[in-house]
């Protein structure tokens, strides 16, 4: 089948037409209809891959690794082949000599407001 690109809005429009008593499908509708079904299995797997809000929050919670040394984090993530003798342990956590004068962040300072226009350009 020829590949066809489509938007979510088109699918929604199609669904709307199909939901009517006497659907009038034109040629593009029919092609879309076929394409949707042929891509159904792939779409299903894509949908399954989009995380939920809870999963995203969980990822966020685990996303932070303290310390100054980025390289150490990268090595941890991609893994390294085992070596002998084993590498020395990572340095102890950084001891601040002059800790930040700001307190750790707490509650969000800007609670969301009501609907506002796009800032855009004046």
């Amino acid at each position, binding site marked *: 089948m020829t590949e066809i690109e489509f938007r979510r809005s088109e699918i929604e429009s199609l669904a709307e037409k199909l939901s009517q008593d006497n659907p009038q499908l034109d040629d593009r509708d029919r092609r879309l209809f076929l394409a949707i079904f042929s891509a159904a299995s792939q779409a299903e797997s894509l949908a399954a891959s989009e995380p939920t809000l809870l999963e995203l929050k969980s990822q966020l919670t685990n996303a932070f690794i303290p310390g100054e040394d980025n390289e150490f984090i990268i090595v941890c993530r991609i893994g390294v082949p085992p070596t002998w003798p084993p590498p020395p342990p990572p340095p102890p956590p950084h001891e601040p000599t002059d800790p*930040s004068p*700001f307190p750790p962040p707490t509650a969000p300072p*800007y609670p969301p407001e009501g609907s506002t226009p796009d800032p855009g350009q*004046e």
Partner: protein
Amino acid sequence: MHGDNVPEKNVSTQPGAWPVILVSMPFVDAYRPSIQLGLLKSLAAARGFPVRTVHAYLTFAAKIGVEYYQRLAEHRGTMVGEWLFSLDAFGGAAPDHDAHMLADLADSLSSLGTSQEKLRTALTRIRQEEVPAYLDALVDEFPWHEAAVVGFSSTFQQNTASFALARRLKERYPHIFTVFGGANFDGDMGPEFVRALDCIDVAIIGEADDAFPRLLGALAAGGDLSAVPGTARQVDGRVTVTPPLPPTPHLDDLPVPDYQDYFTLAEDLGILRHVGHRRIWLPIETARGCWWGAKHHCTFCGLNATTMQFRAKSPRRVLDELTQQARRYGGFNFEAVDNVLEMTYLKDLFPLLAEMDTDFEFFYEVKANLSREQLKVMAQAGVTHIQPGLESLSTNVLRLMRKGVRAVQNVNLLRWSQYYGIRVSWNLLWGFPGETEQDYGEQAAVIPHLVHLQPPESTGRIWLERFSPLFTGQDTGKIRDRAPERSYRYIYPHDIDLEQVAYFFDYQAEGGLPDDAYSAVRAAVATWSAVSRAEKPPNLTHRSAPHFVQISDQRHQGRDGTYTFEGTLADLYLACSNRPTTAAAVRRNLDLRLSDEAIHEIFQEFQQRGLMFIDGQFALALTLPAVKAR
């Protein structure tokens, strides 16, 4: 001369027989030539008048020491510069011969001296010894007798020094015709000074490009000044004001300012020894007025008193002027005196400069809602320093001052300016009628997240300026107890109406907050400034690949770390990087099934970690790309 104002000694009708000397007195920046003098010299010279300019502030700076002079010139608030010359300007009529101002306003003068006693000693000596000696030498050593007309340009704190010199010149050379102009003579101020002071023959009210050459022409033609537009003078003991012409419409028609006399004098005095020609930022005017103010005048802004209408030079003309001035003075740094950037320059002038591979550097005042792409174009053209008038990190306060931007746009400007290497000069202001304690609590809470960006240069209560909407216009009902700023009464004689001549005013805002409402934000900014000057300033950067972002957070020593986001989480974060956006827009762009509410909740999670700035429904990533300036 006060009376019919018509000079009698010089009867020639030839412009060449009417030598003109233009003077700029203390206090203005010693490291800048006066664009007012430079432009008026070119305008008058084009009509055939022999013109010299005297940047007399240089002589005073050399006399009292350039460093201390600069501190006085940069001081705002209390009019200490005006006070220093007031005895010589007004003689016996001057108030405060005993220097009570120094004690009464000591707090506001503390930045000028290490202790109150040392400050008192230094300023009293300058006032009683250095100033009279300076004025005597200035009158003695310059060939004023050759001049038929002496013109004074006065802005900021240049009034009393100008009056003091004019008074001495009138005493010694009665034939000299004196002309005053500049921002300090706009509106009601000029006519009141003309009424009260014998040393002023004519004041030009508003733009002088046309009025000043016409005035010289009228003098040369026999002294009929009644047809010269935009002037104030005394006729038969009464002040007569002639209606002004419309503001100069075509700036391309103006000549290029002549700064040669500045460089000659500055070199003679050794003032350029420390900085060199190339470090002088040459003033350039590419536009006048304010396109934003013409639509929505910011409530506190007193600029552009009678000339708000926006006008700009063509890109070709600007390029020609830059090239000409660079060749003349060997300088490549230009300080635009414009109140706001002409936005079309982003599409024509700046790309042209970038394409030509010029090495100019520019300072510009801009409106804060510039995008990443626009700041990139500016940086490529050589804009290295901007003053965007950010004023606040609270959208509510910005709305009260009619700034036309949101806080999130201000933060975005700080981000991309930093990324493209553009220095940002800005202040965090308060004291706006209608503001709340919450506005300042929220700013204090968010500032620790912004310390990797450029801090404000100062904080403080807004000044009430003449010509601002708060002073005159739709917002006057929001203030009470308005009175000329306190130091004026220590400067001007009692018969000068301070209501007419003051530019700054004290006031109370209706429903205003007490000073301690600003304590937290003041302290947060102080810390922000301190950490930004540290050996290792705070840093918040990201590196990204498709569906992957790694953020290095080094803003708070002892809490450094790295965030790693993948997949949708990375996509959500990066979608808010270029400009502020909403959850709904992000959902559409990424074609997500998550609800807008869920996406906004994730934005709030980012915010809690100090990685995003949320302003209403708009969200903005706070990181900067680790890879420089793409």
